[in-house]
Structure formats: C-alpha cells, structure tokens
C-alpha cells in the first residue's frame, strides 16, 4: 500500500517535471528575438558611432529614439521580456562595450587625417556594427542552446 502511494507520487512528480521542461522550452522559443532584430540593432549602434565620430552628435538622439522604438516593438511582438543573460555576463558585456564605443569614436577622429572625415567615421561605425551583430549571433546561439536543453 505504502509502495503504491510512493509510486503514484513519483509518477506524478515525473509528469510534473516533464510539464516544467515543456513550458520552459515554450518560454524560450517565444523569447527568441526575430531574425531582423540583431542586424537592425547592430546597424543602429554602428550609426551611433559613425555620427558621433563625424561630429554630427545632434542626430544621435534620433538614433537612440529609434533604438528604443525598435526594442519596444520587438518586446510587443514577442510579448515577453527575458532575463536570459546572468547579471555577471551583462555587466562584463557593458564593461567591454561602453569603453569600446568611445574608443572607436576616438580612433575615428585620429584616422581623419589619413582616411578622410567620412571614411574614418564609417569604418569605425562599421567595426562596431560587426561586433554588435556577432554579439546578437551569440545571443541567438544562447537561446537555441537553452531550447535544445529544455526540449
């Protein structure tokens, strides 16, 4: 009798764990950003570097507003917001990205003499865009990995 009770509890717990895995997988599928999101954010971030390096800072506000709009729209589309990255990873990412952003602006200004005003700004903006795009690919890979683990 006691054994039967234990067996029923174990089977119920097993079933519950299965449901949990299924729902976690569903959440991660929903949370995966659409394919256009990474390249668009990368492009906008690169534009931010290019405009700042080209002394067109008055237009950076527009790019920032556009980025906020894109992020909000993406959130409305997926109808979830995630905490997929551990706080430590996010902090390390910011510590690397923020100085890199300013470093590229300085590099672009230093390269003006040799490459020209427009080319130097575009080159450094392009480098930042590529880095951001690579980061978005890492993020997508992260989501896919969790999807595989939870299914």
């Amino acid at each position: 009798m006691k054994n039967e009770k234990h067996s029923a509890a174990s089977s119920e717990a097993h079933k519950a764990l299965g449901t949990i895995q299924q729902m976690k997988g569903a959440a991660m599928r929903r949370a995966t950003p659409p394919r256009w999101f990474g390249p668009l954010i990368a492009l906008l971030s690169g534009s931010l570097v290019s405009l700042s390096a080209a002394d067109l800072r008055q237009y950076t506000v527009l790019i920032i507003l556009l980025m906020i709009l894109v992020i909000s729209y993406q959130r409305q589309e997926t109808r979830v917001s995630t905490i997929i990255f551990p706080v430590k990873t996010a902090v390390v990412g910011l510590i690397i990205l923020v100085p890199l952003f300013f470093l590229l602006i300085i590099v672009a200004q230093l390269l003006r003499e040799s490459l020209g005003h427009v080319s130097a700004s575009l080159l450094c903006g392009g480098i930042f865009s590529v880095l951001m795009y690579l980061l978005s690919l890492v993020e997508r890979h992260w989501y896919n990995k969790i999807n595989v683990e939870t299914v």
Partner: protein
Amino acid sequence: MKTYRFDKIIHAPNRLQICAFLVQLEEAEFQLLRAELAVSDSVLSKHIKSLEEAGYVAVVKRRDFGHRRTWVSLTSAGRGAYTEHVKELKRIVESH
C-alpha cells in the same frame, strides 16, 4: 536526505505551467500565457489571482503602442517557492 518545500499552491497543473513559463522570463503578456496554456481568460485569471494572493506573481497593466496589456511576472518569493518545489519534485523522483 534533505527535503525541500512542496508547494501546494504551485503544484496545481496550470499554476505549475505558469511558473515554469515565467521562471526564465522577466515578464510575459497575459494573452500569450493564455495561448500557451490553452485555457480560457477566466481560468487563467483565477490561477493568476491565486498566485498573486500568495505573493508569487505580480500583475501590471500597461498601455503599449495603443493596446492595453496585462503583464505577469514571478516575484522573488515566487521564484524561491518554485525552485524549492522543483527540487522537491526531483527528490521524489530520485528517491523512488
């Protein structure tokens, strides 16, 4: 063997699904949760109310892009209770 807290509020199938869906998210929209659980609005509202009364979820209504939407998130108490509950389920399965 260490035992964890088996939570009767969380263990109800739909409520367990809600917590499992929300645990890796910051928040999710009510209608999305309803679609994932394949339940009616009233059933989901009832379960969310139970979880809210227990302090496990927080509900916020916001107007986004002209649409009034309800967002649900797990509170830290909810995350704690859910984690304990899952550990207890694993212990039950492993002990048998």
